[in-house]
């Protein structure tokens, strides 16, 4: 008689085999989750893919600020106790003191400001090559498939995570990124209609996931961490479910 644990292990094993047949070789079974909870269930093997590229779309200044907050929260999970992150941007940069709210020590981030988009791409690639860095965040407008594939080859070797914050992109073409996110601000929720502004609340949309399921959540960042406000996890239209990349 099989216990439920054995059953779930069997299911996980089968899922892993299916992923391998689909040609997805990145996920290693040993890898454990980051503790992101429901967010991780959208990814293959229920593991947030590290050592790859993630793309964050933001259409205006407000979304840019929301994405910065979400990224800061994500960085605090990715960097844990030690590690250094690079934040490469062109004009204005995130305001460092705000990052402490998302559980991140701002002094462990090195902010790099470069003028040209070409230089930012170059710096991103150099940063991803360097194993002394754990995460590289780059603010870019455009990136095409060839450029992203070049970066993908780099991260496969170095296992550094790259997060691309795309500010007001004109074209959303195919890239080799493992996931494409879109973060929008949402009305915050305050207990019992008390006055004041509540915790930062976002509508986090996972537009594309490699070998995973695109999803949508309403999340709030509370002092206890990331909390799902109303678990929608609605499967978006089946057309966007096909394999990406």
């Amino acid at each position, binding site marked *: 008689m099989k216990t439920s644990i054995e059953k779930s292990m069997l299911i996980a094993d089968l899922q892993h085999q299916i992923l391998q047949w689909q040609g997805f070789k990145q996920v290693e079974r040993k890898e454990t989750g980051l503790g992101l909870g429901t967010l991780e269930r959208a990814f293959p093997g229920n593991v947030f893919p590290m050592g790859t590229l993630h793309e964050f779309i933001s259409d205006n200044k407000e979304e840019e600020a929301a994405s910065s907050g979400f990224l800061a929260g994500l960085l605090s999970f990715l960097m844990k106790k*030690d590690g250094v992150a690079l934040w490469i941007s062109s004009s204005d940069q995130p305001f460092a003191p705000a990052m402490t709210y998302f559980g991140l020590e701002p002094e462990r981030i090195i902010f790099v400001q470069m003028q040209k988009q070409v230089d930012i791409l*170059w710096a991103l690639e150099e940063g991803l090559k360097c194993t002394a860095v754990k995460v590289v965040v780059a603010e870019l407008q455009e990136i095409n498939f060839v450029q992203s594939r070049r970066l993908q080859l780099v991260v496969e070797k170095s296992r550094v995570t790259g997060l691309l914050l795309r500010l007001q992109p004109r074209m959303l073409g195919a890239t080799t990124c493992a996931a494409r996110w879109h973060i929008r601000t949402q009305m915050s929720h305050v207990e019992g209609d008390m006055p004041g502004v509540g915790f930062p609340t976002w509508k986090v949309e996972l537009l594309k996931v490699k070998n995973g399921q695109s999803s949508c959540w309403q999340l709030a960042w509370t002092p206890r961490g990331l909390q799902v406000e109303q678990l929608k996890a609605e499967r978006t239209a089946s057309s966007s479910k096909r394999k990406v990349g």
Partner: protein
Amino acid sequence: MGKRYAVLWLPFLLTDWYTRRHPDCADEPFVFTVPVRGRMSVSAVNPRAAQSGIVPEMLLADARAAVPHLKVLPDKPARKAKLLQAIGLWCIRYTPIVAVDATGCLILDISGCAHLWGGEAAYLQEIDRQLRQRGYDLRSAIASTIGAAWAIARYGPSGAIVPEGGQEKAVSLLPVACLRLESSLIEKLLKLGLRTVGNVTGMPDRVLKRRFGNEFVQRLAQTIGKEEEFMSPLKPVLPYTERLPCLEPIKTAKGIEIAVEKLLETLCQRLAGEQKGLRKAKLTYYRIDGKTGAVEIGTSRASAHVQHLLVLFRQRIGNITPGWGIEVFVLEALKVEEAIPTQELLWSGEGSLENAALAELLDRFKGRDVHCRIRRFLPDEHYWPERSIKLATSLTEKRTTTWRTDRPRPTRLLNPPHPIEVTAPIPDYPPMLFRYKGEVHLIKKADGPERIERAWWIEQGEHRDYYYVEDDQGRRYWLFRLGHYQGDRSANWYLHGFFA
């Protein structure tokens, strides 16, 4: 091996310089003049004028009397010194230590340099040939003391080389003026019948000191080599300098790279041996057409890593213009610091800010884009938002205070704050709506005000009342009003940031 010096005297420096620029003047006598005590005095003569008996420090009227068709040019006070210095700097290709003395001679410390040109005779001939090719007349000499070389350059046969220890014999027949003395002292010596150096060398120091003073004895001792003489070089010699003369002129990027690597290898070996590292280095190149240029690199922490420094220089090679070719490379370490000893065997410090690979990565960023800003922020004890962070001076600097988390702060700060139009009900209530870039935002939720005063010991001005607001679409902003409400003017409202 003892010291060796070469002294170069350019007797017609100013006029040769003028003839170079105006070749048609070569055959006519001309002089430069300066006003001295209300009279025009000759300051420099060209060879043709010198043949007619005109000498420097002669009065212009006398010179005109001797040569009626004399061409007269005005002289500038610092021109000669400037020219001499320029030629001195040009001479650095032959030796790193070059000095200019008060009498208008160039002194080259050639110890250990001459063999690179195949001996002292060939060395002096090369300098002679190069300067003559550029149109400068030259008298030169090499000796073991500055005094002896100077004496022979001025009063002896040109191009003479005095062997080590032979300076006393070499100068014994020269006139006493070759000892670099004041004119009054020379007159006194001549009056006493002491015409050559040989006449005085035999006398005891005690006697000479009593009659001619301390300076005379010192000059004599310096010339003969009994006392050491010091010179102040035009360019102070840096303790960490490497030079690389090339057999063939180098024009290609690959060639320059190999040269830089060779220089770096020797320099870094020395630095590593002394547990030091580079912070700033300069590569100077001397082209065969006489032009020079330089490129500089900087590192964010002391480094003696050849490969890394080579990468930084490789980014700069594009800025080097070799022209017809480069003959000498000089690598200087402008700034050297104590290197932090690395513990590569125990653990590489991966993932920490002390990692050398991280510092090298940032150096490459700086090398690619000079205007690139690499910053790390630390908390500062100020309430004023713009001052609540300060820049870390180094990668390893630790914070001295904690980050404040009790007040909400926007993830994106607008710098400078953007003026907006606001409708607020009554003073000190949060606004109802605001207009930013043509869009009206209806405010649904608000926190505040949080009053932040200016630090009066830093600047004067009005305080700010901050509100953390959320509009009907869930977008969160940080607004502030500058100063108090006043009856006669509308309040100044600003948007200062976007919240996550």
